[in-house]
């Protein structure tokens, strides 16, 4: 992805993030995710319908990269089955770690294509993913999916 376009996508998602709100229904499952070495601290709220991620919202204090990454993650995971979501997450992880990944499914997530070059910011981009994985595993365990 072109660098200028990547920057615009990240900026747009940072300044107008999807579903960043503190109004949360109690039906949502909450998970906190933070980086111990910096100050990013995000709460993710996930609404499941069987094995479908019906909705995700988030709130908290985080840098531009973490906020934009969360917004983009939400756009790509809402409406997906847990299996599809895991596939997206895995590919995103692979991209950030400079491993092989499927470009065709990451959509706006490709804005972080070069993040591996900034080793001190990879953890910012991965912050929401760290949280969602934990939430998915917790949900699967609880519901024996």
């Amino acid at each position, binding site marked *: 992805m072109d660098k200028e376009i990547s920057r615009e996508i990240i900026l747009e998602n940072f300044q107008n993030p999807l579903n960043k709100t503190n109004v949360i229904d109690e039906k949502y499952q909450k998970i906190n995710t933070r980086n111990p070495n910096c100050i990013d601290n995000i709460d993710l709220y996930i609404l499941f319908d069987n094995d479908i991620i019906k909705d995700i919202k988030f709130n908290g204090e985080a840098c531009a*990269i973490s906020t934009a990454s969360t917004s983009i993650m939400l756009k790509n995971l809402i409406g997906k089955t847990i299996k599809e979501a895991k596939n997206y997450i895995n590919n995103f992880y692979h991209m950030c770690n400079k491993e092989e990944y499927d470009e065709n499914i990451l959509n706006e997530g490709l804005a972080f294509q070069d993040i591996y070059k900034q080793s001190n*910011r990879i953890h910012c981009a991965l912050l929401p993913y760290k949280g969602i994985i934990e939430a998915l595993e917790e949900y699967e365990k609880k519901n024996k999916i």
Partner: protein
Amino acid sequence: MHREDFPMLKGDIIYLDNGATSLKPQCVIDKMTDYYENYSANAHRGDYDISYKVDLEYENARDLVREFIGARRKEEIVFTSGSTDSMNLIVNGFFGNLLEAGDEILLTKMEHASNIMPWFRVALKTGANIKYIPLDDNNFVTIDNLKSVVTPRTKVISLAEITNVVGDIRPIKDICKFAHERDIFVVVDGAQSVPHKKINVSDSDVDFLAFSGHKMLGPTGIGVLYAKYELMENIEPVNLGGGMNESFDSPDKIVLKEIPTRLEAGTPNIAGVIGLGEAVKYLNKIGMENIEKYEKNLRNYLIEKLVKIPHIDILNLESDSGIVTFNVDGLFSEDVAYYLNKYGICVRAGSHCAKLTKDVLGVVNSLRVSLYFYNTESEIDSLVDLLKDKDKIIKEMI
């Protein structure tokens, strides 16, 4: 001033994070290298010439530190690994044995983790209670506010002389006078003050003082605990082992050495101690009064420029130290720090290890510029130029 003495300043950086650690002058580096290259023996084992030289250098550094802070006796100076270590030794080794259930410990919410967490634990262990001194509108400590929380159960007041976020200079001498009239001990966290202003513990009458070497041009891993002689005598060693005992035969037959040696168990950080001594000599040569004056002028220069930028919100406008804490309106502090880093400017972002400050400031994270005497007006001009244009910050911070 004196920039030529610092090898790090030959590089292309603007270092404005002196509250985290300071740069080291060549003389400190050379002094430590000299130890490692020419007389690298252990201390207190003076059976041969180079070991005897270690003893002389080590104890000379203790004397330099004693004189630097105006302590009366060498026994009042114990070397530790840093302020955190010193604070833990004071809290556990002294107050752990003194405090009783219902006693009160007075702190403020502006303190660094090292002046809060050890007290949390000792409070749990002893049943003592922690109370916070209310702060005035500028987040300063005043004697009147102190009066409002002192009770007959107050045993100790523990404060930073200069806080690492707000950067206010606390009236330690007045606090000591007030406290000692009521038989209350005063512990001072000097991590941010000892490197930047003239300290005299005999004049201020503080009971305990903790500070680090690395924030005052010395090496990392070395710090100082000052305690009045009679109080130092009553600190129970936290570490037992080599170098601090005279003899041991059975659990009830242990004879410890005199202070300060019995509080420095194990092989000490010899190079660190000697390096710190050299840093003290260097600071003396420049003069602490000159450093204080220079930094105050530089701070004023920075503040005058920052207040003119509408999107900058300064959190500690009224403070006097070289610590300036601010935010860029609507932006996350870490993003701004990343942006400045692209231009070689080093500033700190975050909560600065003082996580209770959010209760008072209403701000979790901020940017902190902390100055030292080797910073210049031209460096501040570069910083201010980069902060002026908010659109540029947003465009370049990612």
